[in-house]
């Protein structure tokens, strides 16, 4: 949108004002996410930049809040940092345990959501699928229905069926919440899928199984992986269902953060936040690379 040569002075002025406005909106979007990174290295227990930090005095910065993530909840946090200390961290540190739980729940719910979701997306993208619209609406609805309603319903249902306070219950619930993302991304990949490729494989003597694994799968794989990452992030960031159906000792990272924010917010939360921001940057990069790969595979030029 270069400025045309026939633009009047007023239009020229607006052109730059408009860009400035957009820059401010981009700042509004990104600043809150980036601000936690320097603040997490604050040497003082404050949530703002101290004089020392602003003058880049090294004593104004420290990694004490990251250290706290390891030592909080440990048996002997002040012992010498040898192998026994690290094993204490692995066994007892509250944040480490929360991370373990989050990863376990996230991994299995992603696996479940991706497998079931991809299968369903393959069915839904076939033109002969009956009741396509209704079924699609049902399968996407966990994303639309407010999480508090889902959590309340699951609380009643799990209490009645004995799934409350179990890992299986949380994994199933998180898989349900991740499924819409898998379906959306995989269906989007299948929309541009050239069906003649399957027919070509069949005409060359491949049976449906071979066709699927050799032709269809490699082409839709980027979409499947993106969907899986979405499902994982959904589970990794989910707190309300965990609050409603999990047992007290089933802490996850978001639940631990939730408690931290509600009770006594400390800069340790900011160090967790920083780690999570870095994780999301990594995930975003992966998804973006996958999208480009998918476009290249399907012969759509990125322009």
């Amino acid at each position: 949108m270069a400025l045309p040569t026939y633009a009047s002075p007023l239009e020229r002025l607006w052109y730059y004002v408009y860009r400035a406005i957009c820059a401010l909106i981009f700042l509004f979007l990104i600043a809150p996410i980036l601000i936690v990174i320097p603040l997490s290295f604050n040497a003082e227990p404050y949530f703002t930049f101290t004089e020392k930090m602003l003058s880049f005095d090294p004593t104004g910065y420290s990694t004490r809040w990251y250290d706290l993530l390891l030592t909080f909840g440990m048996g002997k946090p002040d012992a010498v940092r040898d192998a026994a200390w690290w094993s204490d961290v692995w066994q007892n540190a509250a944040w480490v345990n929360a991370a373990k739980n989050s990863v376990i729940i996230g991994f299995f719910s992603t696996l479940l959501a991706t497998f079931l979701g991809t299968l369903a997306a393959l069915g839904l993208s076939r033109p002969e699928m009956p009741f396509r619209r209704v079924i699609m609406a049902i399968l996407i609805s966990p994303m639309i229905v407010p999480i508090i309603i889902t959590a309340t319903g699951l609380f009643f249902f799990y209490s009645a069926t004995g799934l409350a306070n179990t890992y299986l219950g949380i994994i199933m619930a998180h898989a349900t919440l991740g499924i819409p993302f898998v379906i959306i991304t995989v269906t989007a990949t299948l929309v541009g899928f050239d069906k003649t490729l399957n027919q070509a494989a069949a005409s060359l003597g491949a049976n449906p199984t071979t066709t699927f694994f050799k032709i269809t799968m490699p082409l839709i794989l980027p979409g499947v992986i993106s969907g899986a990452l979405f499902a994982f992030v959904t589970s990794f960031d989910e707190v309300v269902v965990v609050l409603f159906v999990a047992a007290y000792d089933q802490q996850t990272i978001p639940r631990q953060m939730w408690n931290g924010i509600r009770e006594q917010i400390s800069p340790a939360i900011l160090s967790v936040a920083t780690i999570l921001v870095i994780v999301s940057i990594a995930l975003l990069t992966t998804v973006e690379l996958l999208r480009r790969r998918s476009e290249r595979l399907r012969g759509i030029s990125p322009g």
Partner: protein
Amino acid sequence: MSDASHDSVQSGPLTTADGKPLKAALASAQAHRTRRAFYLVAPLLFFVVITFLMPIGQLLTKSVNNPAFYSWQDRDTGEKIPLMVDLRAWFDAHPAGTGPDEAAYAALVTGLVHAKEVKAQGQIGTRINYEVSGSRSLFTKTARKADKLEPPYKEAVLDVDKDWDDPKLWNSMRNASKAFTIDFYLSALDRTRDDSGNIIKADEERAVYILLFERTLVMSALITFITFLLGFPIAHLLATLPLRHSNLLMIFVLLPFWTSLLVRTTSWIVLLQSQGVVNDIWVSVGLISDENRLQMIYNQAGTIIAMTHILLPFMVLPLYSVMRPIDPSYVRAARSLGATSWTAFRRIYMPQTIPGIGAGGLLVFILAVGYYITPALVGGSTGQLISNLIAFHMQNSLNWSLAAALASLLLFAVLLLYWLYDRLIGIDNLKLG
């Protein structure tokens, strides 16, 4: 597709090689394909029915059925024991509005003695306490003394506490003994029943729910509007820049989208609190004095700012996907025909973006109406939405049926919007990044 027919003379309908009529063979092949497609979807459908639809069904049941007054489930055996049997029989025999007589009090005492044996008096009292406050202690106190009470029961019970005379209490017990009740929906809509069972408006100080539904809708609409104001310019910029640049700028939209909700909420707490970064900046540039730091968090303003930030990507992405394919030559044509840049934008460009505005606006509104986490953390007392009240009744007041009724009302509203979204935009067109 079959081999040519071997019969030299073909009469009657066309058949396949094995002699089946072609029409039937095609139909059966089609049915086979339909079944195959359905079998692919079936496992997920089954899974979602169990983990999603059945819980929602249970929620709806809970909102119209609360058996706490007439049924006790043993914690160890899971056995269901009926409670207050005689009193329920008395209610059935006497129409609403009948004052309680000696038989009714006798039935009440029998019921309380039995309830105390199975330790259910607290549950019964809690149930009636939903409607008549103070009755939980009334039930536990009376149940404690029930087995020592002598006839005439009416006087004996009134001796324990004269509050038992209250017609409201009896009315509430009558309602609670029914298997199916819409009373929780009445409460959720700030309605109650008078002494003879007619539906009336609740007292001023108890009428909070309609106010909160209204606040939720107004705040959601406001947030949707702000995301539109902020989202439109940047979506337009992204859509008109060359892809190389816009892909780079898109990171600004996608990174918040991928970042944990709790991280973003935490950031806003850090930024907006009175000793936070934003206030520090205002003070250092002299906009406000150190004593008058602005309260921007733990109130309505905090909820609106944080939710706008969190929902903005949901506005930008649909807008962008509609704006990108708009051909710039239309606007150029309008300019060449004498339109000013404003007219060309308003009359030519803007109308083409309406599908995107509809999609983004509806999506943001749907998500905002049910928002829970952000208002709970930054909303203080004035920034709470209806979801937070549902959570309050689930976790603090433990009036689960009222929570279920409120949740059902919210669910109907959201499903209506979802249906609208599907009709206007189509769920297939939902895009993520």
